[in-house]
């Protein structure tokens, strides 16, 4: 077909669609290529979409978009085998506009978002795999697709092809990711009556709740489980570093089943009906694993460039911001008639100066640190549970004696010193 567009965006997820939307709105001729039957059909997310970055693209989107519930409460469970210490924040400021975040089901949300890009004038082509970038004299000039006569040309190609990031790898922007740079997440969507969800999670009307579950939920492997409320379903999932799963030789769906049957979790999902089972990778290498993101005639956005803040479960928002910033750089490049790496580099500069770059830098050593020292999960969470049980169980033992017992349980002086050192180290990688 040898067609030429101003820009080709590969992948209609949050990053690619945000980019295509912004470009189309600016009057740029953009082709958005999606390999799935429809946008979202290959995509999985725990379910939390932060409002701000999407709102910057389409103000008030949540009035129209298929969002599930605005989250008013975020709980954090530190799980042991038969107990949990739980923290929570619930605030009514999150129950009203402008809202903080929403649960979403990606197959629905991504379709809607891509439709908005189409309404702005982007051309969306589904069911098409981009097999490689067409490179001439070191410059990307188009893409090869798996359609007959499937070469398409453009001034700039935006790689938004997700966590596997095969295209950036083929350009030499990064090596194959290692098992300690990705987390494998498995999830189920469980159907449950709206009213039961609201009663069970202490919610009024459309409000939602998220629960992050640490500790026993991943059997000590670095990762988390989660339980999120949708309108009339729950998302329950567990994600753990692929390296950790391999080392522990745990089947991911058996881990998910362990979480579902855990006595602290079981009552939440009682009486639900399974609707879907999903698996996906999460890029968790962070700042240190980011590939080169700008080349001649090409930029990389979203998961394809490892833009996930695992500590704060942020990813789709970063993806959107990167898509918008890439689009803005491309518009400037178009005005200058120069699509070189030097010209497009303003994308990288702006991105790294934004919250995306700042937060990725802030937590650059966090994942690696917690992966390397698993006792934060293996030892300290059970210790926390034991201490809570001791202090709150009334059995005639004076409280001072209980405190002594807890202090003793921690171990000898060496162990105490080690905990102090660990806490300091954790503070250093998180601060």
């Amino acid at each position, binding site marked *: 077909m040898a067609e030429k567009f101003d820009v080709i965006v590969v992948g209609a997820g949050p990053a690619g669609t945000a980019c295509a939307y912004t470009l189309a709105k600016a009057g740029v001729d953009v082709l958005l290529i999606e390999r799935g*039957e429809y946008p979202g*059909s290959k995509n999985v997310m725990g379910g939390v979409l932060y409002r701000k970055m999407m709102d910057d693209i389409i103000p008030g989107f949540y009035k129209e978009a298929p969002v599930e519930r605005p989250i008013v409460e975020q709980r954090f469970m530190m799980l042991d085998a038969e107990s949990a210490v739980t923290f929570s924040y619930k605030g009514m400021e999150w129950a009203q506009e402008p809202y903080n975040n929403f649960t979403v089901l990606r197959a629905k949300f991504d379709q809607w978002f891509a439709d908005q890009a189409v309404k702005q004038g982007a051309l969306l082509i589904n069911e098409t795999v981009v097999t490689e970038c067409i490179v001439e004299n070191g410059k990307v000039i188009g893409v090869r697709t*798996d359609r007959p006569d499937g070469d398409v040309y453009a001034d700039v190609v935006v790689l938004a092809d997700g966590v596997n990031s095969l295209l950036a790898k083929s350009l030499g922007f990064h090596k194959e990711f290692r098992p300690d740079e990705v987390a*494998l997440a498995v999830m189920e*969507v469980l159907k449950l009556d709206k009213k039961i969800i609201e009663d069970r999670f202490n919610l009024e009307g459309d409000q939602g709740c998220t629960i992050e579950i640490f500790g026993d939920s991943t059997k000590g492997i670095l990762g988390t489980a989660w339980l999120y409320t949708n309108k009339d379903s729950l998302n329950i999932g567990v994600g753990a570093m692929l390296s950790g799963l391999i080392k522990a030789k745990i089947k991911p769906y058996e881990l998910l089943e362990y979480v579902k*049957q855990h006595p602290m979790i079981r009552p939440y999902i009682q009486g639900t009906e399974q609707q879907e089972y*999903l698996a996906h990778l999460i890029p968790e290498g962070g700042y240190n694993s980011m590939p080169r993101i700008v080349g001649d005639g090409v930029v990389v956005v979203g998961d394809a460039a490892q833009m996930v803040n695992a500590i704060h479960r942020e990813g789709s928002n970063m993806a959107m911001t990167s898509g918008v910033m890439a689009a803005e750089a491309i518009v400037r490049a178009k005005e200058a008639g120069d699509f070189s790496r030097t010209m497009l580099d303003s994308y990288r500069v702006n991105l790294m100066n934004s919250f995306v770059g700042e937060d990725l830098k802030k937590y650059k050593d966090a994942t690696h640190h917690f992966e390397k020292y698993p006792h934060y999960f293996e030892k300290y969470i059970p210790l926390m549970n034991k201490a809570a049980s001791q202090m709150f169980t009334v059995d005639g033992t004076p409280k001072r004696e209980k405190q002594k017992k807890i202090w003793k349980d921690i171990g000898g002086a060496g162990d105490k010193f080690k905990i102090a050192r660990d806490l300091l180290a954790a503070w250093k990688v998180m601060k």
Partner: protein
Amino acid sequence: MSNQPKGATIEEKQYLIRFKANTESHLHVLDTDICMTKCPDKLCTIFCPAEVYKWEEIRMHVGYEGCHECGSCRIGCPYQNIKWEYPKGGHGIIFRLG
């Protein structure tokens, strides 16, 4: 496994999903000898979230039709012994929700 609750097995989980299988596999074990001689645990048969890989005495059976296209096997194979591509456009897994 008779005491397992309903929906606990991978077969039941996989049954919930819509697939449009391509006629040919997008996953290829490059050298079965490596699985046989170097990989006693056949790690992909453990960590693949869809149990796509099943070891059958002397060969690796690849049930590509049930693949979630997550990429774990490509990254996780300790011998980089799996050639991994996307299925033909419009084929493979089709998530309806998550």
